[in-house]
């Protein structure tokens, strides 16, 4: 009994002390932030003046290059066109499902998803999505090694010499053969076929995620270890480590048609924008902006580097790039 009562008394004292302290703190800082009532009025009048842009639902797929595209366009929509942009962190599959329900309006960077196109583009599917032009970025997929390796053993950059080094590439996972590091399951990969059709003494071990692949390449460069794996550009890692591409038999039309027979390099992929059909039909300045948007791999790498290397928030990185490139931006805004 006595203990309980003491507990309550102490509690009362503490509560009072805490309340006093926070009131004092609050009083000190109250004039630093500007008054809530004033800002509410400003917001109200802004809302009355705003144009007819409305809400834009922007899917943000999980890689930094995509974030660069999405936030540059999204920031322009907000600052120049007065839209309200809802960024939605989603994987590709889920983003495309959202076109039909109005939950997603824009996918800014698509690396090609034949199965999703079949379901959602008009010619074969329900027509809830439509392609909306190229982003100007070119996706390069290939086999890469860390730069130290390319320098120490230049002949490694030709697939014909890879077998000479197979033992050096062996790991705990590759069962005596050389290890080839496969990638995140999101990407189209024919490495198992390429390895076997080119008679390479390698085993494909899947890293399983982009984070795992990036960490592996970073560690291999830092510790001067042998590593060969699937990688791609544009990717922010290239600003940090200049991975070197290994030459495979050149890509020719149709050489990747039969997955089991592939024995050639990957083709270049032109990345495209995809939007919700109903959103595009409504029209408006935001639709035109997405349609006009185009930039280069270098442009994207700059913004991606601001985000990943310099640790900037994506909206700040986008604003910085916009400030540095007024001409390009003006062209998109028409």
């Amino acid at each position, binding site marked *: 009994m006595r203990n309980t009562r003491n507990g309550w008394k102490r509690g009362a004292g503490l509560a009072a002390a805490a309340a006093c302290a926070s009131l004092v703190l609050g009083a000190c800082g109250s004039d630093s*932030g500007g008054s809530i009532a004033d800002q509410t009025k400003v917001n109200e009048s802004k809302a009355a003046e705003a144009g007819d842009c409305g809400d834009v639902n922007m899917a943000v797929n*999980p890689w930094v290059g995509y974030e660069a595209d999405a936030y540059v366009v999204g920031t322009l929509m907000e600052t120049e066109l007065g839209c309200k942009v809802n960024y939605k962190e989603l994987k590709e599959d889920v983003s495309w499902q959202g076109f039909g329900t109005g939950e997603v309006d824009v996918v800014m960077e698509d690396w090609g998803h034949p199965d999703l196109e079949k379901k959602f583009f008009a010619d074969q599917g329900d027509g809830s999505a439509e392609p909306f032009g190229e982003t100007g970025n070119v996706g390069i997929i290939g086999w890469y090694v860390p730069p130290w390796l390319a320098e120490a053993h230049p002949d490694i950059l030709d697939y014909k010499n890879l077998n000479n080094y197979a033992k050096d590439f062996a790991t705990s996972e590759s069962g005596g053969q050389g290890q080839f590091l496969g990638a995140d399951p999101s990407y189209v990969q024919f490495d198992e076929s390429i390895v076997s059709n080119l008679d390479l003494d390698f085993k494909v071990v899947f*890293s399983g995620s982009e984070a795992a692949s990036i960490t592996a390449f970073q560690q291999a460069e830092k510790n001067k270890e042998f590593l060969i794996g699937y990688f791609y550009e544009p990717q922010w890692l290239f600003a940090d480590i200049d991975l070197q591409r290994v030459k495979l038999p050149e890509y020719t039309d149709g050489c990747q048609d039969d997955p089991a027979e592939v024995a050639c390099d990957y083709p270049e992929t032109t990345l495209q924008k995809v939007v919700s059909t109903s959103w595009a039909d409504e029209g408006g300045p935001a639709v035109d902006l997405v349609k006009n948007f185009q930039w280069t791999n270098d442009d994207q790498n700059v913004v991606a580097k601001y985000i990943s290397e310099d640790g900037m928030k994506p909206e700040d990185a986008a604003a910085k790039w916009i400030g540095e490139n007024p001409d390009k931006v003006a062209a998109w805004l028409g």
Partner: protein
Amino acid sequence: MSATLAPARPEPDASAPPPRQRASIPRWGWALVVVGVWIVVWAFTKGNHTLAMPIREHTDVQDRLTGFRDAVLASRDTNPVIQLTYGIGEWFGSAVDWCQRMISIEDFPRPVPQIGWLGVTAIATWVGLAAAGWRIAVLVAASFVSFGLFGYWSESMDLLIITFVAVAVAVVIGLPLAVYYGTAGRTGTAVLTTILDLMQTMPTFVYLSPIVLFFGIGASAAVVCTLIYALPPIIRIAGYGIRSVSTTTIEATDSSGQTAFQRLRKVQLPMARSTIVVGVNQTTMAALSMATIAAFVDGPGLGQPVLQGLIRNDVGSAFVPGMLIVVMAVMLDRSTTAASQAAEKAARGQVDLRLRRIVLAVAGAVTLALVYYSRQNMSAARFPDSSWGDRVADWVDSFFTWFTETFHGVTQAIVDSVSTVLLNPLQELLAQSPWWLVGLAILALGAIFGGARAVVPAVVCLAGIRYFGLWHDAMITLNMVLVATLLVMVLAVVFGVWMARSKVADILVRPLLDAGQTIPPFVYLVPVLALFGPSRFTAIVAGVVYAAPVAIKLVADGVKGVSATTLEASRSTGCTRWQEITKVQLPMARGSLMLAANQGLLYVLSMVVIGGLVGAGALGYDVALGTSRSEEWGKGAAAGITIVLLGVLLDRIMRASAEEDAVSKNPLQQAKRFPRFPHALTVP
């Protein structure tokens, strides 16, 4: 008092007679025979009928699963079920949105939410004070301030809202089901148990995209996937509590002529109250652990910055929100536990009600004043900027860079030796044997350890694994799960005994265990990858970090439960410390060790998908593949179902063997059934 299932803790009976020796060959002898035969047959047949399959090929069954998903997707505009679930999803979405505008995001045209951080903190502190006393009130206030101080106020509030909505719905749906589970007959219980097993072991990634299809993107999907994972603990634990109300009490009150409903309301529910609270507590913890997964479908909350950090390989910026999830888990765990204790105390009339009312009224008035103040003033509405979060992130970053650079050589040696000594030989046996050989061997081992009771579920599960066409991958995954469980048990025994024997150790280690259990694996994935590279061992490390805490706590509790009299007796006969541990404490805590192994194994299994993201391949990679590429969904779903089947297979064999064990040791003692998946965060 502890928040683990108190009734589940095996309490070895000090007066139990010494184990009766079997006259015939002991069970492990038969098991050795089976393994011996297996190895001999393997030597002649290895490499045949292993059912290995290239990564992008599917079986007909897997294609049919994909086809089913496609058909549902194509019918979404007309399907009445989807219309209904979409309606429910919208309702969840707007409930969450309303809460968000109250406390976490700006309620346009206001530049800030309706109630600012100071007001929210004051309300939460008052609730803590009212429900659990001043200690909890201080803990709550400190936790809320830390959310803002580290720069994640809004995300923290979002996570609280999602957790709160999901737990509220879980209680509404779960309590009636728990009553059914606690009162139903054998068949009803068995059916429900299987469904609950499925809900908890099925990897969330598998049903993420169907959930979006049925409930929409964002908060609604987040609530639903959290709900699916968080519902089972309350049904299991509360049901267990209702079932364990003593039959004498029920008979005594039945004799007064009560109806079944009266019995439930007046006797069973009140007597099971403290267990039900444990159920709610565990449901809350489970809900929190879904935070990062929900972020994959734009679920608001602390999971989003964790995922962002992972995408950028930025350990520091994933670590800070990850730690805040731990803070929130510890806060909710301690306050729900303390609240139930306080309620019991109040029920016994040990609280001065008048003083309590006065304190609460005064504190309430202060709270209202603070709420009002936080609606008017910017600094009380929006948490002032602070650089704490960034500083901690930088510090963590440089620590991990140093750590990985310093220990890189050592860790590679560990990976290589564990792989050659443990992983490779066992995988050779499991995955390179013909499928029928492994199947027969598992059945034989199941029969030896679990008797007839284990054989039927084992046959069903093995047939299921064969049917879904990922046998080879299942065996590789099984191998990793077994090795990880072995490591978990080594840690559990070492740390469990240490914690049980030393109070200081217990106090030091327990918070680390809580953190290991609640911190999202995505936080430590990058440093673990940097240390061990993409490999099966990395996956095992992730599994061990998650599973070891539960096992350690269970072993510690079990060893602590060994009666003091027994220990005294053994000391008086001159036992050394080592003898005391190996001859008295561990054998007496045998039940806890078994429960720890069972739980450890199932927790490891729930990390299989994470393993697929760090180079372990097999079932985990198949699930990740199914989530990433729409045409592979069927294969991912088949892998998910296979994980469930593996879990049920191992669980049933272990449980049957524990029951066999208990019966053979002491026929008089009723075999205790394991309550599974207690998701325990124990409180000292």
